[in-house]
């Protein structure tokens, strides 16, 4: 890939630092769960922590912080489509008579 040995060693420092951060964040996410937050706060915190962890894995371990444009475009398209799927589906669940909690017991 053209990286010099010096650059690789620099990257390796980064890998171990990120690893440490991931360990800490994993502890955080488990620890927070013991506070039994209200569900919407719990979801928000869990999602943010997971997003940070995931972001670190993607950016540093998967080298996305320094990738080529074509890869970025593919991922952006994918993200748009994934979000584009879930939004209408969730809206439908809210209103649909077939959703379990809308079915008279």
């Amino acid at each position, binding site marked *: 890939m053209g990286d010099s040995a010096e650059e690789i060693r620099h990257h390796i420092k980064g890998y171990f630092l990120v690893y440490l951060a991931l360990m800490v964040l994993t502890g955080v996410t488990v620890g927070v769960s013991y506070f039994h937050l209200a569900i919407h706060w719990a979801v928000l915190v869990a999602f943010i922590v997971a997003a940070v962890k995931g972001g670190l894995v993607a950016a540093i371990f998967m080298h996305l912080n320094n990738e080529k444009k*074509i890869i970025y475009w593919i991922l952006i*398209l*994918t993200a748009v*489509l994934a979000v*584009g*799927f879930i939004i*209408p*589906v969730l*809206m*439908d*669940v809210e*209103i*649909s*008579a*077939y*959703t*379990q909690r809308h*079915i008279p*017991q």
Partner: protein
Amino acid sequence: MSSAHGEIHAHGDGHAHEEGFWRKYIFSTDHKVIGIQYGLAAMAFLLLGFGLMLLMRWQIAFPGIQIPLIGKALTQDGVLSPELYNQFGAMHGTIMVFLGVVPMAVGAFGNYMLPLQIGAQDMAFPKLNMASFWVNFVGGLIMLGSFLMPGGAPQSGWTSYPPLANIAPPSQTAWLIGMVFLITSSLLGSVNFIVTAIQLRAPGLSFFRLPFFVWTQLVTAFLLLLAFPPLEAAGVLQLMDRVAGTSFFMPSGLVVSGEILSNAGGGNPLLWQHLFWFLAHPEVYVLILPAMGIVGEIIVTNTRKPMYGYNTAVYAIIFLGFMSFIVWAHHMFMTGMGTAISSFFQATTMIISIPSVIILTIFLLTLWGASIRYTVPMLFALAFLPMFAIGGLTGLPLGLTASDIYLHDTYYVIGHFHYVVSPGTLLALMGGFYHWFPKITGKMFNQTLGKLHFWGTFIGMNGIFGPMLLVGMAGVSRRLYDASIYQAAKSVQPLNVVMTYSSWFLAAAQILFLVNLFISLRKPKTPAAENPWESTTLEWTAPTPPLPHQNFPVPPHVYRGPYEYNTTSREFAPQALQEV
């Protein structure tokens, strides 16, 4: 720019010449062999799906009457039973879409022509290509095998809706497993197509010099890549429902045959519909896009003019591909989604008709003022235009929620989508077959038989699907074993007879095609087959047929756009020709 590792070894390292029968014809990594494998398999499945339809159409037109010749082989009294009718209906759809048209349009035509049209030696991942075919083949075998399972073949439509599909006989599990194989094959193939089209273009072949066919294959590959996984997820969930007793799609308290089901419940049948249609709508664009690509190639070649508005056509295809991901719930207007969601999908569905119209208009404008060569491929390509127009126009009342209330689940829907796929895509594929047959085989086909095949097919298809629209408008529901018992259907029952006769006429026309194929293959090779249409794109400069594993003796360099007909001092300027 293939120079870095581009020393093309004209005579391999000994191995290429010594390929045994198995390596050369069965487990080949050559995209051309794989393309032909896909083509032969797809043709067999298309004929099978056609046969299922012929049997169903007998029952529709002559309910309760014994099927001649083979009826007794199917049932005791020779009359198609309701169960068998449902099985044939479900498998006709499944086979035609997933084992017939897509493998033909993408696996056969795409595999064979894409590397050639971009001047590449092969796909980016030849072994993966081979794997894709064999995974597809296994999926096909599983689907075929399902006919022999206890309880009969899958019979929950090609759509496998729960709760019905969840409680269906064992073959539904086979259908789901078969789909997993077919989806996997598709995913592997689409990765191959995208990487090949992006990375392996010949030097000088920028994106906006690509043949329109390559663009349609590239967008199609993205559709397959990103739309299929949710159906794979749904398939896994339904498999778990059927095999492991989960209730992902089963609401609580469901009563089947008078008994409450004992599963945990809490599931949502609409979840399946959302996951299914998220794929199945882009899937129909997978069915049409390669056809548009082929029609584009044939029209330009036979009008001796560049494509009118090539750039616009490319943008239209890209926009069409993207939009196809956000219209899916127009298949679900009748499920109670509410006006907000329905309005959204109605709007996107209306918008998506625009790029299709743009492309049709571009084709028409290309014809305008042209000196048209009425070759056999051109007949098919020309017919595609009004046929696809009818298919598209009949889609509008379905995409508008108000009229869809009446038309949903009637024969109008079947007429609509068959117009697009049958006189649409299939005509285009047939045209493509005649267009590229000379390059693939080095032989010319019989022109008279080709023309007869065209007219018979064109008339037969319209004879089936034209009246079908009327039957639907009369309010006759689809998937009925015997609609004639209903008052609304009685008045249009004669149309069903017309349709059935047309289907036999259509069958007869296909016999002409098979005869033509057989006798033309037995003819000797002729130099007239090198580039009989005087076409400009790269595949025509390859040897006839292109070299195994290599295609071009020397990698071509591209000097101009794809359709330079009568734009330079020459009547046509091939892309790879240096001096003009």
